[in-house]
């Protein structure tokens, strides 16, 4: 039997996702519905925005675990700012989120670049710093009375189906914009290629004349910007700002992006892969709920799915599979 096996991590991951989608489509009558598809989009929007931001940092050879907490900080900063200027609107809110987010990312970038501290150490420190400051100044108090523009759900497309209303909401649009923007940045713009170069071979990039300081600000700033927007979207979806709502999310997103083929250490990774990584995690959760699997088994199954996916898409797993197919060919 001749099988055309995929060559890339993304290819393998796509195979796993497709297999899972097929399986769920066959075993439930609710998976392949427009409402479910739109729900998946709506509920992964925030994570996808985080993921494409983190992807850029990973490609540039860094890592950041402070972004989810930074998003919470941005939520508060935006909320306080718009309330102090008398309400604001979406344009103001998103602009503020982008600016504050970029600013927090720039703090990481300058610590990493100018003080030559490795990124994981810096971002563990800023993770604690951001969260500590947030708890200190908010005293842990949530904000429930956000301005109306922020709370009112914006449905951009809706259709009534037998299984209920299917809607596309604002976070999905922001997600699509950020996905396209990130793709343009890293694939289509020269500065994006310089980011890859820096992550791939920092010394080589320096010698050929890549501006490493600029690249650091670009990468961490971009993640900060994405985190800021994701934060505002999360607050929009949850209709409240809670200081610890996003803490812990960073590891889920990191796992998804690495699953999608981004290499810790830099130089490799794609938007498509990051999307697949998030999709795999989201679809697993969705499928477990739809299948009516006991929640006590959720973590076990989710862990197993991730392991299978990562084994298949890593070189080791691939050669293992190649070996197996060789055995069967000989037999």
């Amino acid at each position, binding site marked *: 039997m001749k099988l055309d096996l995929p060559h890339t991590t993304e290819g393998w991951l796509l195979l796993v996702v497709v297999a899972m989608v097929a399986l769920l489509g066959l075993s439930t009558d*609710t998976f392949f519905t427009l409402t479910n598809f739109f729900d998946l989009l709506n509920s992964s929007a925030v994570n996808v925005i985080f993921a494409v931001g983190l992807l850029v940092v990973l490609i540039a050879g860094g890592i950041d675990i402070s972004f989810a907490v930074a998003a919470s900080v941005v939520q508060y900063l935006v909320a306080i700012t718009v309330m102090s200027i008398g309400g604001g609107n979406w344009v103001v809110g998103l602009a503020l989120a982008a600016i504050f987010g970029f600013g927090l990312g720039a703090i990481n970038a300058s610590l990493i670049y100018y003080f030559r501290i490795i990124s994981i150490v810096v971002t563990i420190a800023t993770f604690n710093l951001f969260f500590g400051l947030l708890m200190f100044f908010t005293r842990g108090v949530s904000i429930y009375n956000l301005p109306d523009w922020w709370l009112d759900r914006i449905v951009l497309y809706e259709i009534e189906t037998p299984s*209920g209303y299917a809607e596309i909401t604002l976070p999905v649009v922001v997600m699509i914009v950020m996905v396209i923007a990130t793709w343009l940045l890293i694939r289509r713009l020269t500065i994006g290629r310089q980011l890859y170069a820096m992550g791939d071979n920092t010394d080589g990039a320096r010698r050929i004349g890549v501006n490493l300081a600029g690249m650091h600000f670009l990468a961490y700033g971009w993640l900060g910007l994405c985190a800021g927007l994701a934060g505002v979207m999360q607050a929009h979806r*949850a209709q409240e700002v809670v200081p610890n709502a996003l803490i812990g999310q960073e590891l889920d997103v990191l796992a998804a992006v690495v699953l999608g083929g981004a290499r810790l250490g830099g130089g490799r990774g794609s938007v498509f892969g990051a999307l697949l990584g998030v999709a795999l995690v989201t679809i697993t959760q969705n499928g477990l709920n739809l299948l009516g699997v006991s929640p006590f088994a959720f973590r076990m199954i989710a862990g197993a799915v991730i392991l299978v996916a990562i084994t298949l898409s890593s070189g080791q797993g691939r050669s293992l599979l190649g070996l197996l197919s060789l055995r069967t060919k000989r037999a």
Partner: protein
Amino acid sequence: MRTLPTLLAGALAVAVAGFGPAMAQDAPRMGVVVKIGGIPWFNAMEVGIKNKAEELGMDAWMVGPTSADPALQVRAVEDLIAQGVDAIGVVPNDAEVLEPVLARAREQGIKVITHESPDQQNVDWNFELASSDGFGEAHAELLAQKMGGEGKYALYVGSLTVPLHNAWADAAVAYLEEKYPGMELVADRFGVAESVDDSRTTALDLMRAHPDLGGFLAFGSQGPIGAGRAVAERRKTGEVFVLGPFSPGQGQRLVHDGVITGGFMWNPMEAGEVFVTMADMLIKGEEIKEGMEVPGLGVVSPDEATRNIIVDQLVTLSVDTVDDLAAMGL
């Protein structure tokens, strides 16, 4: 290391004790160590403590550690012992860790009262404003009534490892099985109710998997909020009922929109008052006995063996009560 709030609380206590004109030198003194300072729940408890202390002529204050760390609580209790208070109240983060230091307090004749810690050793009394059975059953009954006694429902807990939430859930399920055989649980409980996002996503999935789902019973403060948002999004307000304990301020809007039907909680302000009332009684040497009526607790039946006083002083969360509760900052 002493934490700042502890120091401040101590300094404040000394200042109040030393210079407070109204406080007689022999006014009984009590410190209540709570899980964590600065959050609305314990802010309300502090109000209760202060009000009741003033009423009874006691000097009582609250100590709130900066984080929910058992070690910080131990330190705070040690400080209170050193100050020579007459009574110590604790809402423990970890019952076991506190045992030695509470034993030390009692050796020195200090009265020790805990709250929300039914297995606590070395206490004069532990009191609960809600029994796990009573709390679970009250929610179950309300859900059954709203759903007309039949249909499918889903169950959330904060996480699959929170003992209290699971005890409530067990009680609710057992109650519904017995009283309302027409009520059907769609799956095992979901451990999502500590996150609005997870509660919401899970609710969306469950409503899809079970189009005839009639209700969510969510134990865990974010559960009703997340499930409520999902119900609103799916435009099933009034078709799918959402019940459970939640922060009134957070759920206020959803209750008024009719998305969250209601639930029960106990009042932390009330708990604060009970701390002081019981301390006052113990310091005066009054014994708490079966059938006695204690302000804030009602008629009690203390369990001499486990040193527990458990009552069901539930506060209803509904359209009528939520605004007042929210106004208290809860």
